[in-house]
């Protein structure tokens, strides 16, 4: 079977941006097309990953809008929403479009415009994904993180500092990412003394609110060399869904969607956790890096914190995690994040990650929606 190749990738500056959603999406889209030397009207499919442009900005129909702005008419277009994993879900849709033969050239753009809203408003927009039984109590995504972190530390006898070390590591990686919202290191003491947000988690355990976008260009591997000398292939991709109500899961420290989506992706790729050289995980909250690294099979259940503690996941460790700086320092423009994760793996596999470069032939991206409600795992390999 002809595999799906990623022959172009781009991402905008993440952070507080002047532009609104249409401009942000078009910026990443234009850059991606220009890098591959093609025009908008060469596209057959165009997907837009976005969680909530209607709620944040009052602009719906963004897929149609950006298709026009990129002169991609009459390409088929659709907006993909899967909350925080909209980006990963967009990768899945774009991959499907090419793998099925429905499209020979597909552009995916993920983006979100958030910073014009207050923290309370943005938190509420995101919390609106919760079940009414959760929403009425004022449950937010950060509060799920606090609940889960307390349980994890209790259940596995892990020190509070182990969570802080995720933030320290990812901020250190972000220093070398020119697109990251925060390009500065933080020390353990700063994280441990930052204000409480959802006890036991503190400000530096959380990603910021961010504007930005990222894009990927996909085609069948058999024609990849027409667009790029260096490319990456998607060798496995899986999506899975867990309960809508978070407290119903048997073990609060296990993300079933991570386990199930990665099982599909590993099987499709014919690879296992030990074959992965570099990974981008959805560290919207520091605790999520532990849950994902365990759910993906990198480490035993309850042992993920030790790997961070021992430097295994550092950039120069055996399994570098979040070389981009992660959502933690790069920022988390909801619909863009899953696309930007794949952007980073693409850069690593094509040898174009600059100072962040690690030795990698195989990479994995895990994008989490809600609090593990929907998960997409993508496995990529360097193109031949």
């Amino acid at each position: 079977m002809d595999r799906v190749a990623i022959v172009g990738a781009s991402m905008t500056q993440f952070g507080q941006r002047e532009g609104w959603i249409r401009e942000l999406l078009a910026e990443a889209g234009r850059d991606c097309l220009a890098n591959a030397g093609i025009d908008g009207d060469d596209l057959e499919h165009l997907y837009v990953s976005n969680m909530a442009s209607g709620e944040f900005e009052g602009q719906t129909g963004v897929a149609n809008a950006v298709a026009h702005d990129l002169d991609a008419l009459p390409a088929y277009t659709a907006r993909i929403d899967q909350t925080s994993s909209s980006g990963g879900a967009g990768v899945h849709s774009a991959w499907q479009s090419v793998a099925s033969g429905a499209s020979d050239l597909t552009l995916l753009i993920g983006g979100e415009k958030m910073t014009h809203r207050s923290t309370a408003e943005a938190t509420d927009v995101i919390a609106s994904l919760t079940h009414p039984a959760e929403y009425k109590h004022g449950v937010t995504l950060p509060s799920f993180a606090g609940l889960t972190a307390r349980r994890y530390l209790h259940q596995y006898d892990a020190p509070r500092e182990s969570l802080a070390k995720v933030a320290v590591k990812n901020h250190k990686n972000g220093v070398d990412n020119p697109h990251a919202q925060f390009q500065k290191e933080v020390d353990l003491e700063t994280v441990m003394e930052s204000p409480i947000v959802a006890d036991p988690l503190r400000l530096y355990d959380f990603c910021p609110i961010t504007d930005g976008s990222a894009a990927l260009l996909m085609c069948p591997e058999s024609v990849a060399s027409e667009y790029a000398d260096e490319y990456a292939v998607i060798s496995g991709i899986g999506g899975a869904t867990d309960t809508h109500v978070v407290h119903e899961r048997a073990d609060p420290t296990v993300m079933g969607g991570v386990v199930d989506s990665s099982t599909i992706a590993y099987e499709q790729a014919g690879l296992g956790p030990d074959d992965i050289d570099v990974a981008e995980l959805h560290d919207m909250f520091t605790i999520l890096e532990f849950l994902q690294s365990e759910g993906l099979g990198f480490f035993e259940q309850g042992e993920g914190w030790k790997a961070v503690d021992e430097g295994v996941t550092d950039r120069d460790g055996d399994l570098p995690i979040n070389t981009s700086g992660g959502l933690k320092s790069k920022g988390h423009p909801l619909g863009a994040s899953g696309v930007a994760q794949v952007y980073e793996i693409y850069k690593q596999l094509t040898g174009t990650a600059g100072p962040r470069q690690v030795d990698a032939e195989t990479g994995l991206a895990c994008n989490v929606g809600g609090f593990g409600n929907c998960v997409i795992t993508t496995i990529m390999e360097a193109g031949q």
Partner: protein
Amino acid sequence: MSDRQKTHDAESDEPPMEAARYPDGSILYPAHPLGPDGQEPVEMVDLSEYRATVVTWTTSTATPPGVREPNHLAIVEFTVDGESVRAIGQLTTDEVAIGDAVEPVYAPELRDPDAGIRDPESQSWDGYRFRPAE
């Protein structure tokens, strides 16, 4: 030993804390149209009559519009006829620890329905908080 801590007060106008029991014996809160075995509920169970144990808790300080600040929250576990069922809800205090016993206490309005993004008519806003068991 039964975890049932009081009998339902027929005179009370407090609504039940309604969980659903399914044909395979499992109980879910809130009730879902279909249970883990894909079948419809066979009966409702009022969890407000039972005590629960704290599985985990947090105090959230970054709360959305219309939500109290700070907002103490817990995931708790009830045992009903030998079957475990969990619930999430506000705590009346942060003076709790994992493993503590708590009991449901009714609150007519858990957050201001008019302040958030969700349509006030789309759902109910009353419910049960948890307080340390007496």
